[in-house]
């Protein structure tokens, strides 16, 4: 096809090289394949995309609403819980699966020229497809629960974009580090659990003691995403991220934290990419 192509230097593997188009195709095809194979062989198949968060929600709801009597003074607590779990689950699921992704895909990494980032990205994409299916179910539940649809529901993508970017950054960081240090897997298992309790998933931010509240909103961008989601989707009277972070320009702090995490992920992955095939 392109027999008249100009000579071009082969620069070896990198995080982004190889053309944007091919990167996108590869991410799409690998991510889609992984998603299709996630529940492969199970009787319920794709239904598990819905069932898993629902079942987790069921357990937590019984514990925190019926037994511990925790969410009574939070508006629409069961729906908040469901919504938060689905979003947070995406983050932990995608990032945890991304940790071992490059190593898992050794067969490809060592045999093909590859923009390395495709591999963690594909894992996040596969998680994203899962999230999309789950979110459909979540909104059906919201309606069934009796919440009235509001125009702010349409702002959901504004939450998903930073959530996905943050997940991508973490995925790149973890997958590149894991090639060198296998300790990353157990560390992340603990850290992601800590993040689960350190983010307003089970609770709302106003349950956090005053002196920690702002700190939490500033250092943990996930908290801001969840709190803003609560305001837009579950309870319009909730504070939202900006107010909870201290108002006004304070919101720039968690944005900066998230951006820094992403930048770190890109930087580390980019640095490691040329040597990944040799280290595997």
């Amino acid at each position, binding site marked *: *096809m392109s027999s008249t192509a100009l*000579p071009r230097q082969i620069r070896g593997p990198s995080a982004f090289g190889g053309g944007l188009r091919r990167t996108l195709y590869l991410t799409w095809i690998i991510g889609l394949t992984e998603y299709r194979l996630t529940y492969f062989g199970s009787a319920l198949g794709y239904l598990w995309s819905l069932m898993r968060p629902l079942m987790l929600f069921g357990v937590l709801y019984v514990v925190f609403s019926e037994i511990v009597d925790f969410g009574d003074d939070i508006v629409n607590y069961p729906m908040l819980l469901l919504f938060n779990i689905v979003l947070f689950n995406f983050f932990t699921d995608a990032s945890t699966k991304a940790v071992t992704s490059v190593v898992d895909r050794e067969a*490809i990494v060592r045999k093909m020229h590859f923009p390395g980032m495709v591999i963690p990205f594909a894992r996040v994409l596969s998680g994203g497809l899962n999230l999309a299916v789950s979110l459909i179910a979540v909104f059906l539940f919201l309606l069934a629960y009796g919440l009235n649809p509001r125009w702010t529901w349409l702002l959901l993508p504004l939450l998903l974009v930073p959530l996905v970017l943050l997940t991508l950054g973490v995925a790149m960081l973890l997958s590149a580090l894991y090639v060198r240090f296998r300790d990353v897997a157990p560390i992340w298992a603990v850290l992601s659990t800590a993040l689960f309790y350190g983010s307003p998933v089970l609770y709302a931010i106003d349950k956090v003691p005053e002196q920690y509240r702002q700190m939490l909103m500033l250092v943990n961008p996930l908290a801001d995403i969840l709190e803003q989601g609560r305001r837009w989707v579950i309870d319009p009277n909730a504070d939202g991220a900006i107010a909870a972070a201290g108002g006004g320009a304070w919101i720039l702090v968690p944005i900066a934290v998230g951006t820094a995490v992403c930048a770190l992920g890109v930087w580390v992955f980019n640095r490691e990419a040329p040597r990944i095939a040799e280290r595997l």
Partner: protein
Amino acid sequence: MHPFRRVPVTDLHALKDVSFDIEQGEFFGIAGRNGSGKSTLLKCMAGVYRVDRGAITVAGRLVPFIELGVGFNQEMTALDNVVINGVMMGLSPREAQRRFDAVVEFAELEDFLDLKLKNYSSGMQVRLAFSLMVQADADVLLIDEVLAVGDAAFQQKCFDAFHDLRDRGKTVVLVTHDMQMIERFCQRAMLLHHGAVAGIGDPGSVARRYLELNFEEDDEASVTAGRPDDVSHGVAIGDVWIEGPDGRRVDTVGQGDPLVIRAEIEALQHIDDPEIGVTINDEAGTVVFGTTTRELGREEQPFEPGERISLRLALRNDLKPARYYVDCGVHEGVHRVAGFRYRASDFLVFGNRAQLGLVSLDHTFELERRRNRTEAATTP
């Protein structure tokens, strides 16, 4: 345990000072033994490894086949796998889908499209992967040993396809340790040895160089065997060696080349009716060839004390590639051994003619085939 302690590092240069050009439309072979750096070179060319120094440039789209069916998923059907693999090789998903029919046709798998890949035999999987490679429409194909798999008929089909690609201006680079493959298919070849270029040029000369190098290394490793049966009763067998075409000593001889065995013999006393003999023996001690002056019908004059005899035995080397040992002896009369040297010299034969049996005799092969038609005739 010091988790952060630095492990001492020794540099190992897998490849050094390797420079070469491959023209467009060439079928180029890269050969070398295990550990010679050929796979590393291939991976550098494929962009899987990064070169520390130097540059590799390519015009057009290069597709490596370091392994067949990279990214194949056993749980999916042929179509899914063709799309996945096609995208890996740089096609768009739509383009890969469009080529599916051609791929399946080439692989002769039309009847098995509904099966998952795991239900394919390994041969079928190989065929599918091969077809993809041929249909991938790359400008440069990098192929690593993968052709060792698959049955002969399909292998031939693939090579026909490669030649076809080459005729259309595509470039094929084949990496293998199988010299016959290089000689059969490549127009030009390069030999790697310990990470450096040991030869580049027409496949025949590269193949010879390859075999020479192989044997040289074996030679270094071999330990000179003891000589338990040496005898000296009146005759001392002196130096025994193999002479090359230029008169110098050699220890390798090509198949079909002249083989010249030289020996120096010294008579220590009077020897009546001497018979001088030379045998060529293989590693196991089997006499592959032997000759004596008496068998040739020659009657030698008696040896006088102090007489020196220079022997020159010349024959065409029809031995198969292996290591051989030369024994040399002198009889007095028919029975008395006056002097004998066991394994007085040794040499290696390289070449790639038929390797069955002990020797490689000049021959032709003709077949006349007739089908038995009686069965068809008796059927009413």
